[in-house]
């Protein structure tokens, strides 16, 4: 894009991918299926979640196609219910929750802390197998007729009224939950116990901090979802009302238990993404992240506050006014650490030597879209406006701005950022910059009209709508098409780059993280010898000295 770039690649005529690396060490299917190597498990995860992303994406395409016209003509209303439910379930539990932690986090966290592997490699592999089992169950659910509860399993709809595959969907999410618990548990243990000499807490890259915070949420929140789903399944099978009011249960109890996990779950989804942005913004501004400590603690603050705000999903469900007031105030508190992050990234950019490589473009996308998503969250957190806006397209737009505009942008940013480390090859810069741009434009076209639709009062989760909403829906569907192209491009050129990409060398971005100080792709044991951390995180002066030393010694 611009002439200024920080990319330094080795001389392509002589450069070679290192012969010994984690990809080449062993061959054969079994060496992958029985591996304990966090980088290989991350690769398995990457392939699996990409698969589920495209299934979820195809379902999203169907939703948008149906909403092109006011009548429910492409599919029956029941089918539409199933399609958006499966879209939600797959995207939340099989893409967003494991996206950054289980792939990028799995790949780089041990390297960032200077360890040979995660603390519990077998548990890590088990987590992937659980994911696959859960994914298989979810596909089976879909193949045998799907589920139409929405991703929230709302009772008594899910336990009393529906005849779709609630049980297998519930069990799939139950198993996926344990996969996520084991990933989180592994990260926490690794970050506490496996740091290399000299790696103090405040020398950790911010990506590690944010994944640590997300892991706490996974470990403490997910089991509550698990037991809630067990109760839903039991209620469906033996017909005892814990949640079903007609049998003496309490549907609000379900909502409390469900959102006790599922609100923190949105932070499980966004926090690791914020970590990616910290890394990328710092690297491409050539500056230490402004207010490192504040950003680090804001992650933990989001995690802690995250447990005290769940009832803002229930303002219109008949919870007490007093509780609503308290939960509303607490919800506003979460805006503070989120804003700290946004402001600090902005200050990191200030006076930095900014370059516009693809990860940075995605990061810019994240910062803009997440800010919009976050700010509209404040509208929804306020009890008064929430009553008007909830269950409309406003809320759909809000969480897509955070989850897609935020997390997915961050995921793609991270994938591009660490791709050279992962594969040893560069992705093609120009076309990927184009993809980032297309994604951003497509995204805004898709979801911005939905804010307007929501304020006009178009309810969510219906296959049909009054004709006066059609113009904006057409906009949205058109945008989704562009967005689809934006997501297809990376998978094409990234696959292409596996063979034809330029050799990246150890540190194409001249980044400071420990993961960049080893070869790409890394050795199975990550480092030839355990590194000793002797500088602060994002210390670009240290990097300069280091490189001058290397040149001198050569």
């Amino acid at each position: 894009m611009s002439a200024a770039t920080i990319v330094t690649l080795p001389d392509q005529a002589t450069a070679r991918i290192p012969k010994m690396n984690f990809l080449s060490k062993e061959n054969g299917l079994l060496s992958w299926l029985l591996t304990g190597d966090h980088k290989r498990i991350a690769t398995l995860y990457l392939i699996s979640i990409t698969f589920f992303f495209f299934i979820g994406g195809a379902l999203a395409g169907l939703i948008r196609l149906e909403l092109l016209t006011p009548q429910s003509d492409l599919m029956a209303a029941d089918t539409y219910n199933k399609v958006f439910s499966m879209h939600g379930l797959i995207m939340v539990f099989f893409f967003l929750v494991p996206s950054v932690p289980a792939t990028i986090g799995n790949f780089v966290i041990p390297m960032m802390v200077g360890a040979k592997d995660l603390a519990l490699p077998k548990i890590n592999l088990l987590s992937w197998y659980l994911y696959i089992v859960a994914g298989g169950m979810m596909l089976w659910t879909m193949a045998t007729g799907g589920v139409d509860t929405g991703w929230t399993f709302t009772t008594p709809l899910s336990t009393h009224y529906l005849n779709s595959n609630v049980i297998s969907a519930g069990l799939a999410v139950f198993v996926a939950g344990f996969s996520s618990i084991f990933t989180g548990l592994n990260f926490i243990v690794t970050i506490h116990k496996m740091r290399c000499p000299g790696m103090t807490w405040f020398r950790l890259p911010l990506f590690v901090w944010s994944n640590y915070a997300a892991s706490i949420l996974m470990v403490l929140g997910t089991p509550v979802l698990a037991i809630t789903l067990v109760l839903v399944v039991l209620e469906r099978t033996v017909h005892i009302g814990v949640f079903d009011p007609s049998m003496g249960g309490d549907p609000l109890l379900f909502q409390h238990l469900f959102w006790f996990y599922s609100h923190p779950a949105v932070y499980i989804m966004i926090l690791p993404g914020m970590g990616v942005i910290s890394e990328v913004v710092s690297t491409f501004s050539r500056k230490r992240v402004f207010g490192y400590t504040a950003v680090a603690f804001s992650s933990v603050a989001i995690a802690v506050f995250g447990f005290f705000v769940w009832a803002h999903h229930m303002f219109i469900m008949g919870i007490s006014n007093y509780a609503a007031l308290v939960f509303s105030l607490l919800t506003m508190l979460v805006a503070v650490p989120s804003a700290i992050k946004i402001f600090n990234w902005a200050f990191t950019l200030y006076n930095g030597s900014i370059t516009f490589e693809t990860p940075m473009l995605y990061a810019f996308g994240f910062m803009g879209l997440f800010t919009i998503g976050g700010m509209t969250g404040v509208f929804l957190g306020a009890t008064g406006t929430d009553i008007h806006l909830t269950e409309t397209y406003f809320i759909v737009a809000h969480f897509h701005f955070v989850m897609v505009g935020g997390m997915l942008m961050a995921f793609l940013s991270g994938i591009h950022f660490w791709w050279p480390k992962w594969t040893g090859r560069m992705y093609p810069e120009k076309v990927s910059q184009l993809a980032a741009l297309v994604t951003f434009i497509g995204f805004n076209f898709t979801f911005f009209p939905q804010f307007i639709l929501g304020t006009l009062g178009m309810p969510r989760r219906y296959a049909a709508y009054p004709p006066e909403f059609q113009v904006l829906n057409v906009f949205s569907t058109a945008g989704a098409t562009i967005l689809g192209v934006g997501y297809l491009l990376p998978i094409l050129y990234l696959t292409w780059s596996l063979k034809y990409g330029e050799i990246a060398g150890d540190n194409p971005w001249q980044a400071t993280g420990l993961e960049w100080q080893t070869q790409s792709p890394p050795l199975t044991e990550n480092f030839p010898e355990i590194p000793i951390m002797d500088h602060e995180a994002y210390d670009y002066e240290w990097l300069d000295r280091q490189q001058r030393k290397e040149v001198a010694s050569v």
Partner: protein
Amino acid sequence: MSDSTVTANSVEVDTHHEHPSYQRHHFETVAQQFDATNFAMWLFLLTEVMFFGGLFTAYLILRNWYYPAFVEGSHQLSIFWGTANTTVLIISSFTMAMSVWCAQMRRKGGLLLFLTLTFVLGLVFLGIKGIEWHEKWVKYHVPGLHWSEATFLHPQTDTEVYAEYHDRPLAPDMASKTEQYFFLYFAMTGMHALHMVIGIGILGFMLFRARAGAYTEGHYTFVENFGLYWHFVDIIWIFLFPLLYLISRY
């Protein structure tokens, strides 16, 4: 606290490359390995706390709503068997603690003895639980599967319990809520029993390995961590006992 000592150790030990066979390659020292797995076990127990936490929350809400049904439901449980089971489980916790001690002291005979005792006590617990569950089946108190609320509409028919507590008949809509009580009873004790079964399975595996002397040569991490699990299961029962059995006995 331990973090700093571990990193310090790892520098020190790295200089002489002697690794005992039980040290996994990605750990720098045995101490680090112990710390990491022990911490992981604690984190796993955290998830277990929250797992049972959801059940306890459901219990709390429903108990407050349907208190009379919960009282008469709990009168159906046998204090004798409940107390006996609590005692059995507490003693098994003690024998488990002693197993850890024996492993620490490298006393193979003692370890085998105490592990066997724990194993047997675990089975006794499940046996008693089985007796209690069977009684519920006989009395049509298994919600959803083998259920009748007749006992709570006509308490006199259950002479044994009636003689002790003189329960008044519940109104029909409240009587039907005893099903909620028994549902939670089975869900909570069932989930607990499932943990016991898994624990007993692992105990069997440990007995097998302990006979080969696996834990009495300095590396007892597995015994220690399993002990944590076993004590946790004990703690869950410590709460289930008063919540399910002792609701209102006076």
